[in-house]
């Protein structure tokens, strides 16, 4: 078996009194797409942060492509597509600028783009169908186009581990289809992709596997099984089947 792209082991994270992750473990292999499902506050964003090494877990370890997260970051292996709420859309950068930021890990310390960088950016823009919008300010795009711009950044980065936080929130059908196709293509090319999403209907078409998260990893399997109502009830605490939860 290949070296896992993501190997998170027993991650526990606490924010003050609040337990955000409780012994969460997750292994994802290259060329696989995993959907991360759970309600708000279930620890999805925290899991992303822990995988990127943005916060130090109380206990547990993370390996990326067999290396420490720090080493993986240095080699620009980790690509991240933020939630829309986390982006300042009035920031004076163009779509092209944003995608070019994906190349910074490959550049010298003044981040002067070389020919290869410009080529990679042009190609990524072409693939997400934003070439005509390259010089627009990032906020002057539709919801779906904005997401595609950030996906293009991950593509230009040549990230082998892609983390996407709610890429389908506020996205039109066409962009959703485009993003799904792009992620499938990236996976075929060897990337391991972790996607948090509320869009459960689209999950089987996108993901090879799915994880139910509620502080703990409740379940990890193929999307059809994970999305069964009785399993979703575990993650969302809903009485989906009309049974009393506590009985």
């Amino acid at each position: 078996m290949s070296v896992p792209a993501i190997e998170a082991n027993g991650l526990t994270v606490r924010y003050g009194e609040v337990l955000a992750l409780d012994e969460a473990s997750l292994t994802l292999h290259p060329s696989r797409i995993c959907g991360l499902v759970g309600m708000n506050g279930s620890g999805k964003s925290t899991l992303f942060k822990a995988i990127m090494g943005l916060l130090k877990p109380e206990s547990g370890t993370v390996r990326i492509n067999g290396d420490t997260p720090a080493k993986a970051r240095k080699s620009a292996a980790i690509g991240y597509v933020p939630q829309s709420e986390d982006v300042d859309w009035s920031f004076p950068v163009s779509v092209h600028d944003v995608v070019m930021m994906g190349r910074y890990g490959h550049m010298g310390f003044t981040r002067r783009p070389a020919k290869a960088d410009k080529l990679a950016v042009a190609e990524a823009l072409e693939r997400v169908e934003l070439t005509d919008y390259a010089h627009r300010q990032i906020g002057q795009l539709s919801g779906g186009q904005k997401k595609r711009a950030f996906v293009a950044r991950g593509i230009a980065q040549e990230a082998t581990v892609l983390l996407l936080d709610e890429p389908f929130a506020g996205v039109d059908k066409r962009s959703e289809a485009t993003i799904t196709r792009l992620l499938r293509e990236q996976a075929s090319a060897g990337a391991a992709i972790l996607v948090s999403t509320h869009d459960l209907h689209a999950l089987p078409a996108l993901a090879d596997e799915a994880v139910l998260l509620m502080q703990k990893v409740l379940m990890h399997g193929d999307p059809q099984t994970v999305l069964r109502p009785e399993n979703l009830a575990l993650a969302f605490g809903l009485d989906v089947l009309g049974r009393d939860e506590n009985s």
Partner: protein
Amino acid sequence: MNPIDLLLEPLSYGFMLNALATAVTAATVCAVLSCWLVLIGWSLMGDAVSHAVLPGVVLAYMFSVPFAIGALLFGFLAVGLIGAVRDTSRIKEDAAIGIVFSTLFALGLVLISVTPSETDLGHIIFGNLLGVSKEEVLQILILGALALAALLLWRRDFTLFAFDATHAHAIGLNPRLLGAALLGLLALTSVVALQAVGVILVVAMLIIPGATAHLLTDRFGRMLLIAPAISVVCAIIGLYASYYLDTASGGMIVLVQGAAFALVYLFAPAQGLVGRKISASVRRRSAKAV
């Protein structure tokens, strides 16, 4: 008097030449830095650090070490204290900033009052642009050039940090280090400008030019040109106005900068309050004409 003489006459005085060099240098460096500060949302932080360096400068004077060292020390002390108060109590950040910077600034004022020197309190607060010595101009030019060079050399990293610190982290940069570098440059810039133009002017110069430029362009690269251009022009106009009207030069420069912001706020083509309406009606008319 013809207009050329109006411009040249003040420059026949050495003190006006020094004042002009100081004002232009401070205006340039502060304006470039302000582009990042307003985008990150660090305007208040700029306000805080530029006040908080005062005790550092006074102590440096007392112990005859370079002002820049004292300023850096107290700049970081202020940022550390603000973070500590915010993170370890229920006090919100704006209150933490207010508490820390006003206390440190007050410490500076008290230190000045017990230090035997010719430093006038009024000069610290409002500046003493017309009293800058040749040696001070030289120091300001050198420190200003250093700060400007560092800002421009790392401008792409600073911009990435301002726009998406998480991505910066994910690709192996160190956002904390970038933030600290920016704050260090802020402390350095403050000491450059403070001695000559006063705390109030530093704060204005650290916020207004970046905010004005942000209303005029959607490209960060252009912001980095527009902000210092506006700031320098305002500094020169303000200085001449203060010469002919016999008013406080520091205050005059800030007034002109504020007026420039107001004009842009109202009439900028895409973002201005009135400008937006004019652009829209022009578009409608040209659409009808077609």
